[in-house]
């Protein structure tokens, strides 16, 4: 079966949140059973959470050749309806009731339901297309990343290789299923014959930590904000004796915190891996080998096995000298086919030829370790989610307000014209809910007018100062 390791049928593949053990043999039979519910060459939206239902549906879709779009199960109805309008999937799999009248219940599977589109439905999908992920997941942009089975398998294989994941590893799902990093943890463990504790608890809940000990979890993944949480909880006091590996991706941790975390984890015998990646590369692009964390805490490390990185200057020429900044380019089997913004785009084949322009400006040192200096594009990472500041401005325009949006990681600044007649408190709440980002990260700043450059463009630098 695609992706799933077949060497250990009697070993545990999954542990559900209530402690039920699912062996690899059982998992394969569940997926086989689900296969009969869905036809091939169609689209399915999976409103996923970290549970057995979502995982079986996902694996079955990949096996049958039905293309899943993974979405968060708490996705806003407006955003879901927008995606349904654009892509009109044949199926929707969800643990909630659907308000959309075009769908009716086909069957139930454990605690979830499979809904079928009432209308005659056919879609032209490229034969290599296997999976769709959202690019930011939050601003409601319908821009999707198109992934192939080769992408998924090669990234899972590479991750298993450099993180040395094997049958004795057990990860807890500390990140959302539909998030490329969260998904990569699941894929790499199923690929290697390891196991997964399915949990929807957060690090701020006691249950998260007790279940790690109860089920002997060995590996935890986190975005920078998760590590902030561990620091806040007191990382030295965490008692997690079975854990031997912790990974970090989804944004940059500052080097002082890196040192503090690494020192603390080392005393516990936990290897700490910092990684870099993008959904456009399925998940991972580079990693920092543990032994170099102290020496190079700011580095994103070296390319993952099977991948390569290089830099190009403004003229598109390859940079061969160390310490010179240029745009970082990645090549590997995990680079996506391209984007989809409409249903027609799903029929289009390979657009990237395995090469991804990351949009990040970087340099490398004498030992070939890469360091990111900045970004070409107006993107920030908020709690591990990539947010396009331009898309957010557009979203606010659709709500009828003139705004300028800037930000740094984990902070969004929304400058809005004064006298717009809105309540800052309500507006902040509304934005937070529509992009699914906690309002703690959002600051609304009333402005009399926006500073502009001579060209008439917004002067972002003047706004920030």
């Amino acid at each position, binding site marked *: 079966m695609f992706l799933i390791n077949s060497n250990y049928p009697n070993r545990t593949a999954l542990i559900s949140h209530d402690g039920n053990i699912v062996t690899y043999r059982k998992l394969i039979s569940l997926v086989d059973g689900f296969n009969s519910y869905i036809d091939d060459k169609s689209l399915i939206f999976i409103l996923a959470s970290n549970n057995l239902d979502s995982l079986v549906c996902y694996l079955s879709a990949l096996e049958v050749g039905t293309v899943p779009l993974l979405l968060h199960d708490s996705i806003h109805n407006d955003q879901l309806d927008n995606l349904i309008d654009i892509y009109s999937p044949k199926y929707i799999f969800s643990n909630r009731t659907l308000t959309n009248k075009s769908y009716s219940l086909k069957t139930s599977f454990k605690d979830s339901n499979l809904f079928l589109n009432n209308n005659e439905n056919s879609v032209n999908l490229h034969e290599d297309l296997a999976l769709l992920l959202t690019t930011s997941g939050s601003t409601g942009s319908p821009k999707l990343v198109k992934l192939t089975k080769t992408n998924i398998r090669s990234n899972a294989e590479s991750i298993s290789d450099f993180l040395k994941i094997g049958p004795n590893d057990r990860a807890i799902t500390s990140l959302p299923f539909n998030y490329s990093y969260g998904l990569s943890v699941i894929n790499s463990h199923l690929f290697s014959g390891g196991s997964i504790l399915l949990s929807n608890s*957060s*690090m*701020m*809940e*006691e249950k998260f*930590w007790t279940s790690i000990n109860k089920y002997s979890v060995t590996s935890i993944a986190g975005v920078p*904000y998760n590590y*902030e*949480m561990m620091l*806040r*909880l*007191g990382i030295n*006091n*965490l008692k997690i004796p079975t854990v031997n590996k912790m990974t970090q991706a989804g944004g940059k941790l500052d080097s002082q915190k890196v040192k503090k975390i690494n020192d603390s984890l080392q005393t516990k015998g936990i290897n700490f891996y910092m990684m870099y990646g993008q959904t456009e590369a399925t998940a991972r692009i580079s990693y920092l080998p543990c032994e170099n964390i102290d020496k190079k805490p700011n580095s994103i490390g070296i390319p993952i096995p099977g991948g390569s990185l290089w830099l190009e200057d403004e003229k598109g020429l390859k940079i061969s000298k160390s310490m010179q900044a240029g745009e970082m380019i990645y090549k590997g089997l995990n680079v996506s086919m391209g984007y989809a913004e409409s249903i027609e785009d799903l029929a289009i084949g390979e657009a990237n030829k395995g090469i991804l322009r990351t949009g990040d400006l970087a340099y490398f040192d004498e030992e070939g370790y890469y360091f990111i200096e900045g970004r070409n594009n107006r993107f920030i990472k908020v*709690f591990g989610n990539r947010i396009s500041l331009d898309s957010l401005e557009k979203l606010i325009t659709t709500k009828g307000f003139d705004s300028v949006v800037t930000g740094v990681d984990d902070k969004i600044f929304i400058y809005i014209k004064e006298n717009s007649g809105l309540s800052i*408190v309500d507006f*902040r*709440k509304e934005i*937070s*809910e529509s992009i699914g980002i*906690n*309002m*703690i*990260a959002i600051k609304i700043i009333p402005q009399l007018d926006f500073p502009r450059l001579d060209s008439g463009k917004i002067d972002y630098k003047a706004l920030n100062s």
Partner: protein
Amino acid sequence: MTNREKYNKAFIDCFSVSEDVLNEKFVYQCIPAWDSVGHMGMIAAIEDTFDIMMDMDDIVDFESYTVGIEKLKNYDVVID
């Protein structure tokens, strides 16, 4: 400001709620803003307000407005 006012202000600022919802029914995940990220922000605000450092057990057990009042007693902060 009394301790009660300070305590309430932390919730009001973090979660954009009005004072009248702050009672025993105001619990973790009762509103979208009080998720794990919001929880951490609220704990940070309370630690700053009362100049304390809370233990892990108290942070993860801090599951409602009223439970929080009990937890703060461990740091000699009394909310009347």
